[in-house]
């Protein structure tokens, strides 16, 4: 690793052509892509929400499906950001060699990584927003104006998990490597972060562990907004998500430089 690899990422608008390239590809498959974004979390939301919810008394002060709705927005955003940066990002970088082609133009690797980050965040915003629409349509929220604030929260959550996904992609020798990230990071995080049940139900040790995970803070931010409450410690939760985003982004840029600019 060279010392030059550690310099701060260049942030310029040159990332836009990379973003537009991905957008043009997405546009061709927009309908199945949006349906895919919706189907999985909706199955969980209504399946668990009504099925499991009918067995439960109040959860978090309301019906289970309302409780679950906030978790599902975060889960859906996480999923979309992770799949985009891992599988699609890896295809572009390693399999199709799209990044190599771009690097022969007057573009820097930093432009590409930023383009991928912002693209993936935008795509996951759409996923989170799609669930929000469903929530609005089925009146699963408790306050319309407050729930609009979920949108900027989802943006931050998308940036956070996209940046984390890029770190994994930068390290990955092949698609198989992603399984480690899902099994060792994503799935345990989803189960610990209060997506399906309140974190307070966990043994104290796991509660402490959960407090370190970005998804926990995402859920703490989104769920109250749907319930019509201003989240307690909103600045802390947003700060944790932003810190994960910034640190992961920096680490990803350094790792990509080491991988591709040798």
């Amino acid at each position: 690793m060279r010392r030059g690899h550690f310099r701060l990422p260049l942030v310029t608008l040159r990332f836009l052509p990379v973003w537009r390239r991905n957008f043009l590809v997405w546009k061709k498959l927009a309908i199945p892509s949006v349906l895919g974004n919706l189907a999985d979390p909706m199955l969980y939301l209504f399946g668990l929400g009504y099925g499991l919810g009918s067995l439960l008394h109040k959860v978090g002060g309301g019906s289970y499906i309302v409780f679950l709705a906030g978790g599902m927005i975060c889960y859906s955003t996480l999923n979309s950001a992770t799949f985009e940066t891992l599988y699609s990002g890896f295809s572009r970088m390693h399999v199709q060699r799209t990044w190599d082609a771009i690097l022969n133009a007057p573009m820097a690797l930093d432009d590409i990584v930023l383009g991928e980050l912002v693209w993936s965040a935008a795509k996951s915003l759409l996923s989170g927003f799609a669930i929000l629409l469903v929530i609005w349509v089925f009146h699963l929220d408790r306050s319309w104006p407050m729930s609009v604030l979920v949108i900027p929260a989802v943006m931050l959550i998308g940036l956070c998990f996209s940046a984390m996904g890029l770190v994994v992609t930068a390290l990955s020798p092949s698609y198989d490597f992603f399984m480690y990230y899902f099994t060792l990071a994503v799935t345990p995080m989803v189960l610990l972060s209060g997506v399906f049940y309140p974190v307070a139900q966990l043994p104290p040790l796991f509660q402490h562990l959960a407090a370190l995970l970005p998804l926990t803070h995402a859920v703490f931010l989104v769920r109250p907004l749907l319930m019509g409450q201003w989240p307690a410690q909103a600045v802390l939760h947003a700060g944790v998500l932003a810190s994960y985003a910034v640190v992961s982004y920096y680490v990803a840029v350094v790792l990509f430089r080491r991988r591709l600019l040798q």
Partner: protein
Amino acid sequence: MRVLSAQGLRKSYGGTPVVSGVNLEIEAGECFGLLGPNGAGKTTTLRCLLGLTEPDGGEVSILGFPIPGSARRARARIGVVPQMDNLDPDFTVRENLVVYARYFGLDQGAVDARLPGLLEFAGLAHRADAKIQTLSGGMKRRLTLARALVNDPDLLFLDEPTTGLDPQARHVMWEGLRRLLNQGKTIFLTTHFMDEAERLCDRLSILDQGRIIAAGTPAALIERHIEPLVVEIYGEQARTWGEANGHLCERMETAGETVFCYTHGDEAVLERLRGAQGMRYLNRPANLEDVFLRLTGRELRD
């Protein structure tokens, strides 16, 4: 005018030197060829020149821009045809050109103006809306070349541009490159097809184990490094024949069942061969491949 200059370029990976003091100079409008066996350091040299890899030492300047310091500005005036096709499989022929032009900051108007010319150059005007997967290998290469021209570059880098193409497609590709040279473009080519280098290049450098071991025009290289005539003798008896008659050649090389006899005058050898029973042979002028094999040896390099 000097388009490219590299002095003392060095690069090693994990303590193993890959490029060890390469000097290159390319003038405007010429076709320059960098030849070398696999692993000679061609790709690493190219990456250093494009500013994609920081060299350990040496000075590079392209079109007046210091590399890697101003590599992005230099690349704005460079076109690159990479060794492996990296066209965008999700796009049509036209979209590939349009999307690539955006990386150069070209606006839609400039792209629209250039598109018909580029499609015509690639011979793909009738396939503008075809998917990449439906194109033949030759079409893909021509599209990659057209893509490298979206910014109307002054200097083109081509990394083994005809590897994997059939003879027809190679000739079409060479025709395209000659048209570009006639337009005044400068071309930097790497290849290990000696006929390609001989046909296209004004000047060549041969790279081996990270060093330039010979440089000059194709004709000068042949004259300097090798006897002008070659007789190739084939078949089971070739080796025995060679052992008995080697003194007729100035220099003799044996590779498997073929004997290469290098000489200034091939009359004596040919006469002896005509007299022998059932010998298969071919006499021809020496070419760049003979020079290449003489300088880099006949052993496999991968």
